[in-house]
């Protein structure tokens, strides 16, 4: 059996530096650009990219953010500390959207991806068909010391997996949960922490929510109930601050719905995507 996912490398300039970005694609139709979580990569979307019920109507595209997965950091990376910012994240996403010639894509992101879609809706809304925020909140207060995820006397992969393991629902299948953790175990040193700079410090988007026009760029938010990083309460608070947004809380799912239990997540996602496809046709 060969999966229908095609992987290629896209050459882009991001932040004034050349990048070789790994991009996966499956399906035809409405462009659906998918963003992975902090410290992980495109493999989180394996369920979606193999879901014929989605790919028959959507051109699903996902990419490894620079420094993640098979997108190496730019030349000179060894001389700098990686710290993701709102501006750099938006630039990377729009560079991929332009590089892949996506016409008003729907952008669906999870966790840091669910955060940044709020900024995309605020500042790039006229270029998008809408955003879906999974485990989306406008800010998160720190609740542990992230320096533990990057220090020489603790295995970075194991501690990153340990930090996120409990964010998944205990009901999610064991094999999908451990697949999700494996991606975290393979992250580069300091990359998860660098992403958390955006998630827990720099990327507080509360002041940006009032800029979102859902008539121009619809906003849909879905959050799993077991997530204590981006809690249902945080998503509901975010949705309340975005006039015209839609929000749903998903039972027996956590912080990685597309990766920890895709079949269950699809019960929430497919009806939403069907509505989006119908509205676009």
């Amino acid at each position, binding site marked *: 059996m060969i999966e229908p996912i095609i992987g290629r490398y896209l050459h882009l300039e991001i932040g004034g530096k050349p990048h070789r970005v790994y991009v996966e694609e499956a399906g035809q139709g409405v462009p659906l650009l998918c963003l992975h979580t902090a410290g992980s990569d495109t493999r989180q979307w394996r369920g979606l990219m193999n879901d014929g019920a989605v790919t028959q109507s959507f051109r699903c595209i996902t990419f490894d953010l620079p420094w993640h997965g098979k997108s190496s950091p730019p030349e000179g990376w060894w001389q700098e500390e990686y710290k993701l910012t709102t501006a750099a994240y938006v630039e990377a996403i729009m560079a991929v959207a332009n590089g892949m010639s996506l016409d008003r894509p729907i952008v669906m992101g999870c966790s840091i991806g669910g955060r940044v879609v709020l900024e995309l809706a605020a500042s790039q809304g006229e270029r998008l068909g809408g955003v879906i925020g999974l485990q989306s909140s406008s800010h998160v207060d720190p609740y542990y010391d992230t320096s533990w995820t990057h220090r020489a006397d603790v295995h970075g992969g194991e501690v990153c997996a*340990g930090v996120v*393991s409990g964010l998944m629902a205990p009901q999610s299948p064991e094999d999908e949960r451990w697949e999700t953790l494996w991606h975290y175990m393979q992250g580069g040193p300091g990359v998860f922490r660098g992403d958390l700079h955006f998630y827990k410090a720099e990327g507080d988007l509360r002041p940006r929510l009032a800029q979102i026009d859902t008539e121009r760029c619809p906003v849909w938010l879905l959050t799993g109930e077991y997530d204590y990083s981006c809690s249902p309460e945080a998503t509901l608070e975010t949705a309340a601050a975005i006039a015209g947004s839609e929000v749903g809380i998903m039972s027996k799912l956590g912080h990685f719905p597309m990766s920890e239990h895709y079949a269950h997540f699809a019960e929430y996602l497919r009806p939403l995507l069907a509505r989006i496809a119908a509205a676009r046709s």
Partner: protein
Amino acid sequence: MTPEDLPGLVNADPVLRRWGRNLTTTLLLEVGPKSWLLNIHDGVVAEVRGGPFVMPSWIFALRADPAAWAKFILPEPPPGRHDLFALIRHGKLRVEGDLHPFMSHLLWFKAAFATLRPREIAA
């Protein structure tokens, strides 16, 4: 189950034995007024001693809210009570002392204490 059951549960688990092969520490577990000292050597729970203690010596301490801990060890724990970090996030567990053994073996500690749940969870 109680912390006294940990040696039988953890030491019989080959996965935990392998993951914990470099873990040697002493921790104090407090659940409300009850307390235990756990001695762990190379991933083996060598001794669990119940309190109260006079001058206990430990590397790090886990201090849990009893009601939250009771939910943590349910077969299907509710959101916010299903994980050690979830308890920390909600202010129901405090971790004190030298956290290196805990953070360097975080998956181990989460899994070891989860063995106190009576049975597997149905999906």
